[in-house]
């Protein structure tokens, strides 16, 4: 049994919760502001390790883009990373890869999503990253998608 606690205003907590909700993993939500991920009583110290270990096989990402997501999370205002992501996604759209690692979403997409969607609150407009904006629509339309405050759902 998976249990998760953490602030609903935290990007870290949302990242994990989004994996569970998109991948359809059952979990219970516990009270507590601190991020806590426990599986069968065993605690995950590292949220990224949890993302990688708990993602079902079809949600696994290639190393490069998972590592990129970690870099983006630790430098959420680095516009060079936004540019790199936007360029990758633009070519991906034309080469049959609407998601970071190919034709279906993975933990790399989930990994990047909170920082991308909360960028404006950090002062970074997404206007210069049009492919990124289209990608965020695709993520928001995935079955099971849930929000954190600051992110809005899209109609079906």
């Amino acid at each position, binding site marked *: 049994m998976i249990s998760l606690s953490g*602030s*609903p*205003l935290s990007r870290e907590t949302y990242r994990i919760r989004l994996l569970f909700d998109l991948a359809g993993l059952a979990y219970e939500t516990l*009270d507590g*502001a601190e991020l806590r991920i426990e599986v069968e009583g065993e605690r995950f110290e590292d949220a990224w390790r949890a993302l990688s270990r708990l993602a079902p096989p079809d949600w696994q990402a290639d190393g490069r883009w998972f590592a990129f997501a970690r870099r983006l999370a630790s430098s959420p205002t680095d516009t060079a990373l936004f540019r790199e992501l936007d360029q990758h996604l633009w070519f991906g759209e034309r080469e049959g890869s609407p998601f970071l690692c190919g034709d279906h979403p993975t933990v790399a997409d989930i990994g990047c999503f909170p920082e991308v969607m909360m960028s*404006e*609150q950090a002062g970074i407009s997404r206007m210069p990253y049009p492919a990124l904006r289209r990608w965020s629509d695709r993520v928001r339309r995935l079955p099971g998608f849930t929000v954190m*405050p*600051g992110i*809005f*759902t899209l109609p079906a």
Partner: protein
Amino acid sequence: MDQVALDEWHVVAALPSLPFGQEVATRLLGTDLALMRSPGDVVAAWPAASGKALPVCIRYGHVWTSLGTPARPLFDLPEFAEPDRRNVMAGSVPVHVSAPRAVENFLDLGHFAYVHDGYLGVEPHTEIKPYKVTSDENGVLATECRAYQPQASLIAEGGFEVEYVYRVPHPYCAILYKSSVLDEKRRDVIAIFVQPVEEERIVAHMLASVLDDVSSDDAIKNFQQLIFAQDKPILENQIPKRLPLHPRAEAWAPADAGSAAYRRWLSSRGVRYGTIPA
């Protein structure tokens, strides 16, 4: 400089957030200030540039000061003093928008299903029936405001129609009253006290003064913060950031009666800071 805004009391901190004996920097109406809390809940405030003591009052769990000469005391909020109230300082959040835009958002009834979907509103229950609005020199009052809410408060079970009263007793403060789930003759109070840091920047201080014998302070605080975190991106995406006071600057629907009265009241009081005057 807007003398009307200058002569008001303005909130500058939630009292529990101030450590004892340590200078805390803040900013009000474009002026850098320093605050210092001492034992006995005494707080001193002074402009960083001059060191000259400013008037201070501690009301409703928050610290208020003025850069001018207030003509009268701060508005009353008698519920705060009731012995069985839970008074929770529900957070102080910086937002890149003007104070009047934040107040108007707090008064707004038509956004619940879109901004607070599943919490304070849900499609298709979007109708806002007519409500009553009065105003005088002391502020604006909107009564008989009704909205269908799926989860109107932490201890509400299921959805039902909630009746609200909104009160604006200060250019940058708004108070919402709704029937208590525990005692229908009394009301829960949620207030937003907006600190005008600059014309287009604020800190929104939230107070929940509620009847609730079940929820922890953290749970009450978290709920208010969650709701406000949903409003924040809307506020930060409004153009212009200042509130236009001309009656035809923006479009109106009947549900906006409260905000129309608020804009007229600001004009009649001569408040300019954070607005685009008519």
